[in-house]
């Protein structure tokens, strides 16, 4: 028999066992370990945890960076919600010796849209006195605190500058560690007298709050301030967590598919994502490391994003003049409305990209996709 401070075991009924509705902007649950907060479920249904749960990572291989890569800005990241970067690291697939004469300078910048102002996210590092060691990460330059907070829609990208003849960086990989910024991190000022339940140590052998059911949802938390009221957090019988308004319900994947050569790469099929569980694709962003104008009505590249044979989205590069996507180096563009009923992936489905040249087509350098999705089951 489980010991808990609050145990609900096989209660009859159809509503969630634990139901909280609040109209004063109170957070729902706050958990402390020996007086230090380790998690809370806030009034927006966001789960804020000091465990590794909130630490997200992405890895973006960029291939071989040429000795002279001054002209490219490699897209790294964009999000549909505000995030904070906590760490950036780089690696090469082979050792790069330091060289005080011919070296590469690497900096991470950001900007909002093609006409935005460029801001440094990190200080620069070089390979002048420190190179790269195979199988080892090297930290980026120091993060610029304020700039490491990335607003929704801001593009983060790499900028290379050569000294003398520069330095090849073979099999270059960027790694970004970040967390999604919660809408709010503290409840409206609290006093313990306001608490409905205040639990402490009690000689337990199981959890503090336990729900053991065969039919009902376990937890259901609602925002009653809005009209109509809305459920912001739910744990179903099967343990599926729903957070329909929480920023942390989104997950982000970044994939650099490399250079697309017009016409020659028409047979290529790049894979962006393989679903493990049911997934809803929410947004797709696309960018490149070199600018491309939509300046031709006769020669352009069509890029289609597919779930199996079902098209989720499509765009053209290089033209047509009226509808083609103009690319600015390093800037990621929102592809806008997706074909929603095709954007739900069953477990095992693969998100793919196909390429079709019209006439001589258009080359795309360092084509990068950012996939924003939710886990449904």
């Amino acid at each position, binding site marked *: 028999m489980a010991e808990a401070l609050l145990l609900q075991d096989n209660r009859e009924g159809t509503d*969630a066992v634990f139901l909280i509705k609040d109209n004063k902007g109170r957070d729902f649950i706050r*958990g402390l370990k020996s007086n230090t907060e380790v998690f809370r479920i806030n009034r927006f249904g966001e789960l804020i945890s000091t465990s590794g749960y909130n630490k997200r990572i992405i890895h973006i291989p960029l291939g071989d960076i040429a000795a002279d890569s001054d002209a490219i800005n490699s897209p790294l990241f964009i999000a549909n919600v505000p995030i904070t970067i906590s760490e950036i690291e780089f690696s090469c697939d082979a050792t790069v010796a330091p060289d005080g004469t011919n070296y590469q300078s690497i900096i991470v910048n950001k900007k909002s849209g093609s006409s935005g102002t460029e801001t440094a996210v990190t200080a620069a590092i070089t390979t002048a006195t420190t190179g790269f060691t195979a199988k080892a990460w090297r930290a980026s330059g120091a993060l610029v605190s304020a700039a490491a907070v990335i607003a929704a829609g801001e593009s983060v990208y790499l900028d290379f500058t050569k000294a003398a003849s520069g330095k090849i960086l073979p099999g270059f990989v960027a790694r970004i560690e970040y967390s999604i910024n919660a809408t709010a991190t503290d409840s409206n000022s*609290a006093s313990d007298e306001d*608490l409905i339940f205040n639990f402490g140590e009690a000689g337990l052998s199981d959890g503090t709050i336990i729900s053991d059911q065969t039919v009902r949802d376990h937890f259901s938390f609602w925002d009653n301030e809005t009209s109509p009221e809305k459920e912001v957090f739910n744990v179903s019988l099967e343990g599926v967590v729903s957070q329909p308004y929480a920023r942390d319900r989104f997950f982000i994947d970044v994939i650099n598919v490399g250079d697309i050569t017009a016409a020659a790469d028409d047979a290529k099929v790049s894979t962006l994502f393989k679903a493990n569980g049911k997934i809803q694709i929410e947004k797709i962003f696309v960018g490149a490391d070199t600018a491309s104008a939509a300046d031709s009505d006769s020669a352009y590249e069509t890029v289609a994003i597919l779930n199996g044979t079902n098209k989720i989205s499509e765009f053209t590069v290089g033209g047509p003049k009226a509808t083609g996507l103009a690319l600015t180096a390093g800037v990621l563009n929102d592809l806008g409305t997706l074909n929603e009923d095709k954007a739900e992936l069953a477990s095992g489905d693969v998100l793919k990209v196909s390429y079709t040249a019209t006439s001589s087509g258009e080359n795309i350098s360092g084509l990068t996709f950012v996939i924003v999705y939710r886990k449904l089951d």
Partner: protein
Amino acid sequence: MPTLNIRNPLGKGEIIKIDQSQYDFLVAKKDGTESFSIDVNGLPDTTCNQQYYEETVNIGDIAADSDAITPLIFKKPQAVTIAAIWMGVDTTVGADAVNYQTVDVKRTSDDATILSSAPNTTAGLTAGTPVTMGTIAAEGALTADNSLYLDFTKTASGKALSGFTLHIIYTLEA
């Protein structure tokens, strides 16, 4: 009707506060079997598919002889268990039992392989169709900040892989 129904309580702070040092905060079970929990360190855990995290890592073009390179592909600041890895290419590779590439995934802490058996390209690979890299060995349990890297071994003249892509599936561990 809910069993515990709290509606529009007065006050400003959080509604439920739990301060303890040993036990899970919340536990949800389906007929006696845990389906969701938040542990003593604030780590949520579920038994449904939401427990899986996925990351796609496109390494790019791999030369037929890539024996000398060891690209890093993964590092997480928390203990994880690798559940599966899928590999694919953007251009079809034909079957070839003579000239092929073997791809292994290893961890940096001890250079141990995390795959029970490193796969190779003898059967070929179809563009846009990832294949499993096989069973993950016990070494797929990674401590925080332990990295993964790829190790290529050519047989005869090896095999070039265009747009070589991995899909890494993992779970978080306490």
